[in-house]
C-alpha cells in the first residue's frame, strides 16, 4: 500500500512527459529548451520562452529549415542543476532533439554541459557568463560574452571620452561565481591595463541587503570609478547606500547587472552607472521591432516584464543560430541519422563567423560567442546608449 | 521459604555476605537535603525493604545507588566493588539492576525488544551489536527472552508494542527486563503499585522464588503485607534520614516510625 502513492506519481509524471511527446510529427526539427518556470531565476528566465517562441515562429513562417518546421520542447528546471541534467538527458534520449537551448544559470550549465557532451548534443546557454565554462567540451556553447570583454568595453569608452578614472575601487559578491570573478580578477586586472589606481576592494554576500559597512569603507577610498561584480540587486543596494552616505563615483559593471529595468528600480540612485552588455533595444529597426513584438507577447502571456534584456535577445538569437547551422548542415530531422546530424550542427555552430543576428554579428571562438558590446549609461530612469564597440 | 525463617537469620552469626552496602551517603538538591548520612546493607539472598512516607527519599536512594545522581558524600559498594564514582552505565556490570516506579519501558519497541535491551550487558561486544538477530526467529537471545516471558505468563504479549499494553502487564515486563540483565542485586521501585490482588500474589511468589535462587532484592513499597511476606529486613526513611531498621514486626512498633507515618497521614 505504501508504494501506491509514489507509484501513481511516477505514472502521472511519465504519462505527462510521454504525452507531450506522443503528438510529435515525425519530420519536425526538435530543439530542447531548458527554462525555469519556478525557483530563484523565474523572473529572469520565464520571458526567455517568449523570445524563443518568437524566433521559432519567424523561422517557421519563412518556410522553416530545409522545408521542415522547427518545434520546441521545454523542460522546467526550477533553477536546479540536477533537473538541468535530467532535462538534457530527456531531450537527447526521449525527444530526439537536435540541439538544446539553455540552461539559464552557471550552476545549471555546469551540470548540463557534461551530459550534453556525453550524449553528443549541442547545449547553448543564453545567460551564463562565468569565465571558462565551455573549456574542455566540444558540444558546449554560450551565446554570451565574458564579463571581462564587457567591462573592458566600458573602460575603453570611458578612456575615449576622457572621463575621470584616475582611481578605482571594486565591490563584489563573494559567494557567486560570476560576481566574484569580476571583483577578484577581471576588474583589478582591467584597472591595471587602463592605468587606474586600485584603492581597494569591498565584498559582500550575494543576498546581502545591508551594504552600509561596505559603502563606509568605499567612502574612505574616494574612488573615481567603482567596478561592481554583483547581481542587479547588489548594484541597486550599493547605489542606494552610496546616495544615502553621500558617496559620488561612477559605478561600472558588466552583463550581470544589465537589467532593462535597473534604472527604474534604482529610483534615481544610480545616475551615471555604466555597463557593457550585448543587447540594447534602441540600436536599429530590427531591435526596435523585436522589442515591440516581445512586449506584446509577454503582455499576452501575462508575464511581469515586457522589456527584453540581453538574455531574451540571446535566447532569440540561439534559435536563429541553430536554424542557420541546421540549414548549413542540411539536417533532415530523420531519427536514424540523429547522432550524425547533432554533431553536424555542432560543427556548423563552431564554424559560424559573423552571423548577422539580432544582437549584431556573432562568431564563435572556443564555444563562446564573440559579438558587439553596447555600453549603456543610466540617465534619469532609463538606459541610454553611451557607445558601441565591435570586436576586432 | 517463609518470612519467619529469614527474619530470624538477620542478626545471626552465620549472616549472609553483604551484597550492597550504602555507607553514610548524603545528597542535597538546590540546598535541600534529600538524603542525609544514610547507611544500610542488603545481604545476599535476602530481600530488604525501603519504606517511609511520601517524599522520604526512597526513590532518591535508588537513584543514588544506580548512579542516576552522584552522591555528595559517602560510598556505595556493590558486591565488594566501590561504585561511588562509577558512571551509572557501568554499575549494571557490577551486578545491580533496577525497575522503575513509573514504569519506564521503551514505548515504540515490542515487549520482546524491551527484554532484548535488558540483555545488553551480556551481549555488548561489537559482534553482538552487529549480528542481524532479527533475521533468525529462533536466535538464542529471543529464545531466552521468550522463556523469561513464559515463566511470567506473559508470552502472548511478546510482539505487542509496549505503549498499548495495560499497566499491570507493563509493570511486570519492567521487572522481567530488570532480571534479564543477569544481575545479582535488583532494586525494585514499588513493584506492586497498581497491580490487582491476583497479580500481586503472582508477583509475591515470583519475588520469593528469586530470593530463593539467591538473588538480593531491595524493594521500595507501600504495601506492608506485601513487604511482610518477602522482606527480612526493613529500613525506614523519613525526611532523608534513617529512623529505624530491623524486621517489619519490630520497626512497626517503633514510636518514631508511627509518628512519621501518622504525622504524614498515611496508614
Amino acid at each position, binding site marked *: 500500500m505504501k508504494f501506491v502513492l509514489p507509484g501513481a506519481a511516477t505514472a502521472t509524471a511519465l504519462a505527462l512527459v510521454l504525452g507531450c511527446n506522443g503528438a510529435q510529427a515525425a519530420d519536425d526539427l526538435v530543439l530542447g529548451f531548458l527554462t525555469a518556470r*519556478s*525557483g*530563484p*531565476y*523565474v*523572473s*529572469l528566465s520565464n520571458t526567455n520562452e517568449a523570445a524563443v517562441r518568437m524566433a521559432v515562429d519567424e523561422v517557421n513562417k519563412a518556410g522553416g529549415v530545409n522545408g521542415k518546421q522547427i518545434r520546441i520542447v521545454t523542460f522546467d528546471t526550477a533553477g536546479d542543476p540536477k533537473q538541468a541534467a535530467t532535462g538534457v538527458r530527456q531531450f537527447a534520449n526521449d525527444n530526439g532533439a537536435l540541439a538544446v537551448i539553455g540552461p539559464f544559470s552557471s550552476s545549471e550549465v555546469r551540470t548540463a554541459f557534461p551530459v550534453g557532451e556525453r550524449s553528443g548534443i549541442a547545449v547553448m546557454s543564453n545567460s551564463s557568463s562565468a569565465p571558462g565554462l565551455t573549456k574542455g567540451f566540444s558540444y558546449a556553447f554560450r551565446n554570451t560574452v565574458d564579463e571581462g570583454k564587457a567591462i573592458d568595453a566600458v573602460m575603453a569608452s570611458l578612456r575615449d571620452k576622457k572621463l575621470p578614472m584616475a582611481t578605482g575601487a571594486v565591490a563584489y*559578491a*563573494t*559567494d557567486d561565481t560570476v560576481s566574484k570573478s569580476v571583483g577578484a580578477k577581471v576588474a583589478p586586472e582591467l584597472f591595471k591595463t587602463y592605468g587606474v589606481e586600485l584603492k581597494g576592494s*569591498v*565584498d*559582500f*554576500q550575494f*543576498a*546581502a*541587503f*545591508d551594504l*552600509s*559597512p*561596505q559603502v*563606509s*569603507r568605499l567612502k*574612505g577610498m574616494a574612488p573615481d570609478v567603482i567596478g561592481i561584480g554583483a547581481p*542587479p*540587486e547588489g548594484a*541597486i*543596494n550599493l547605489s*542606494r547606500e552610496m546616495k*544615502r*552616505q*553621500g558617496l559620488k563615483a561612477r559605478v561600472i559593471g558588466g552583463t550581470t547587472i544589465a537589467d532593462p529595468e535597473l534604472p527604474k*528600480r*534604482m*529610483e534615481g540612485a544610480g545616475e551615471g552607472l555604466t555597463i557593457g552588455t550585448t543587447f540594447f533595444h534602441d540600436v536599429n529597426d530590427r531591435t526596435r521591432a523585436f522589442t515591440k513584438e516581445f512586449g506584446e507577447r509577454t503582455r499576452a502571456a501575462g508575464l*511581469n*516584464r515586457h522589456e527584453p534584456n540581453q538574455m531574451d535577445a540571446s535566447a532569440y538569437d540561439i534559435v536563429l543560430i541553430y536554424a542557420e547551422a541546421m540549414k548549413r548542415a542540411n539536417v533532415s530531422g530523420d531519427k536514424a541519422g540523429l547522432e550524425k546530424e547533432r554533431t553536424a550542427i555542432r560543427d556548423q555552430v563552431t564554424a559560424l563567423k559573423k552571423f548577422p543576428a539580432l544582437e549584431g554579428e556573432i562568431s564563435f571562438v572556443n564555444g563562446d560567442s564573440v559579438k558587439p558590446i553596447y555600453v549603456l549609461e543610466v540617465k534619469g530612469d532609463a538606459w541610454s546608449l553611451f557607445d558601441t564597440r565591435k570586436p576586432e | 521459604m517463609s518470612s519467619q525463617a529469614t527474619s530470624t537469620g538477620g542478626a545471626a552469626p552465620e549472616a549472609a555476605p553483604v551484597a550492597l552496602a550504602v555507607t553514610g551517603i548524603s545528597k542535597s538538591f538546590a540546598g535541600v537535603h534529600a538524603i542525609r548520612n544514610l547507611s544500610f546493607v542488603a545481604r545476599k539472598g535476602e530481600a530488604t525493604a525501603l519504606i517511609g512516607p511520601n517524599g522520604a527519599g526512597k*526513590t532518591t536512594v*535508588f*537513584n543514588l545507588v544506580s548512579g*542516576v545522581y552522584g552522591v555528595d558524600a559517602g560510598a556505595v559498594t556493590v558486591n565488594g566493588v566501590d561504585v561511588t564514582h562509577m558512571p551509572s552505565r557501568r554499575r549494571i556490570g557490577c551486578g545491580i539492576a533496577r525497575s*522503575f*516506579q*513509573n514504569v*519506564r519501558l521503551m514505548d515504540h519497541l515490542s515487549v520482546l525488544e524491551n527484554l532484548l535491551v535488558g540483555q545488553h550487558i551480556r551481549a555488548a561486544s561489537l559482534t553482538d551489536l552487529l549480528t542481524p538477530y532479527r533475521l533468525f526467529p529462533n536466535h538464542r537471545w529471543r529464545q531466552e527472552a521468550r522463556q523469561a516471558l513464559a515463566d511470567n505468563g506473559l508470552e502472548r504479549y511478546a510482539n505487542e508494542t509496549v505503549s498499548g499494553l495495560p499497566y499491570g502487564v507493563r509493570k511486570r515486563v519492567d521487572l522481567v527486563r530488570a532480571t534479564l540483565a543477569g544481575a545479582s542485586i535488583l532494586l525494585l521501585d514499588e513493584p506492586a503499585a497498581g497491580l490487582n490482588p491476583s497479580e500481586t500474589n503472582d508477583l509475591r511468589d515470583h519475588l520469593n522464588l528469586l530470593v530463593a535462587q539467591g538473588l538480593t532484592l531491595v524493594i521500595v513499597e507501600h504495601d506492608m503485607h506485601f513487604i511482610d511476606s518477602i522482606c527480612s529486613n526493613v529500613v525506614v526513611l523519613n525526611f532523608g534520614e534513617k529512623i529505624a531498621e530491623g524486621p517489619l514486626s519490630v520497626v512497626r512498633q517503633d514510636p518514631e516510625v508511627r509518628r512519621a507515618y501518622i504525622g504524614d497521614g498515611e496508614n
Partner: protein
Amino acid sequence: MLTQQIINGLMLGAIYMLVAVAFTLAIGVLNFLNFSLPGLFMVGGMATYGFIRIGWPWFFAIGGALFLAALVSLLVERLAYRRGEGAEADVPLVSSLGFLVLLENLMLVQYGSDQQAFPALLPDMNLRVGGLVIGIAQIISLAISVILVAWLSWFLKRTNAGRRIRTVAENRETAQLLGVNIRRLVPQLFVASALLAAVGGVLFAVNYQQVSPWMGEGPGFKGVAAMIIGGMGSIWGSVIGGLLIGFAEVLSITFIGADVVNITVYGLLLLILIVRPQGLLGKPPAREKL
C-alpha cells in the same frame, strides 16, 4: 569609521532582535521551533509592498500586512502545531517549514523572483554627525524594536496575562491545574510572535527599501542564531544575541571580508552551543525526574 560600523551593526542587530524575540516566544513557551516565522517576516514586507502597489496608503498597507501575517500564523497553529502535538516533537517543524515554502512560492507566483524596490515611506533624510551617517528610517526602526521588546518584557513580568504565559512556559500541566486556558493562550501567542516577525519584515523593507520572496531566510536563520546565543526563552537574551550577531556580521565584513560572515556568525553559534548550550542568559535545562 569604526563608529559608523558600530551604528550599522546596531541597526542590523535590531532587525535580528525582533526575529529572535519572535522565535523565543514560540520556543520558550510552546517548545516549537517555528520555521514559518521567516515566511511571516517576508509576508510583513512583501504584503506591505503589494498593498502599496495596488494603491493603499502606507499605514493601511502595513496594517493589512500585519493582519495577514497574524491570520497565516493562526493557520500555522491550527495545521502545524495543534495537529502535531501528540506526534513526534519534530513534526510541527516539518509543517511549519511547509508554510515557509508555500508562502515563498505564493509570493513568487504573484510578484516574481526579482527583488522589488520598496518605496521610501519616510523622507529620505539622514542625520550627518561629524562623518557619521544615520538614517531617520534606521532610528525609527531601532526605536520601534526597542519599545516593542521592552513592552513585551514588561507585559510578561507585570501583567496577569504575562504571568499566565510564564506559567505555561515553565510547566504546562501545572498551568492547566492552575486554570490557565491553554487552548486560548496558544493562538494568542502565535499571533504575537507572528506580529513581531512581520513588524521585523516591515522595518526591513522600510529600511533597506527592498523586498523579495526570499527576504525572510537570511534574517530568519540569523534570528534563530541570535535567539540561541542569547538563551532560548529569554527576551533580553534575544536582544543581546541579535545585537551581537549584527556586530559580528558588520565587524567581520569590515576586518576580514564577506566570505567569512557565515563562518563567524555560525561559528559563534556553534561555540556557544558547545560551551554554554543554554546561551548567555538562558536557564540550564531542568533535570529529569525518575
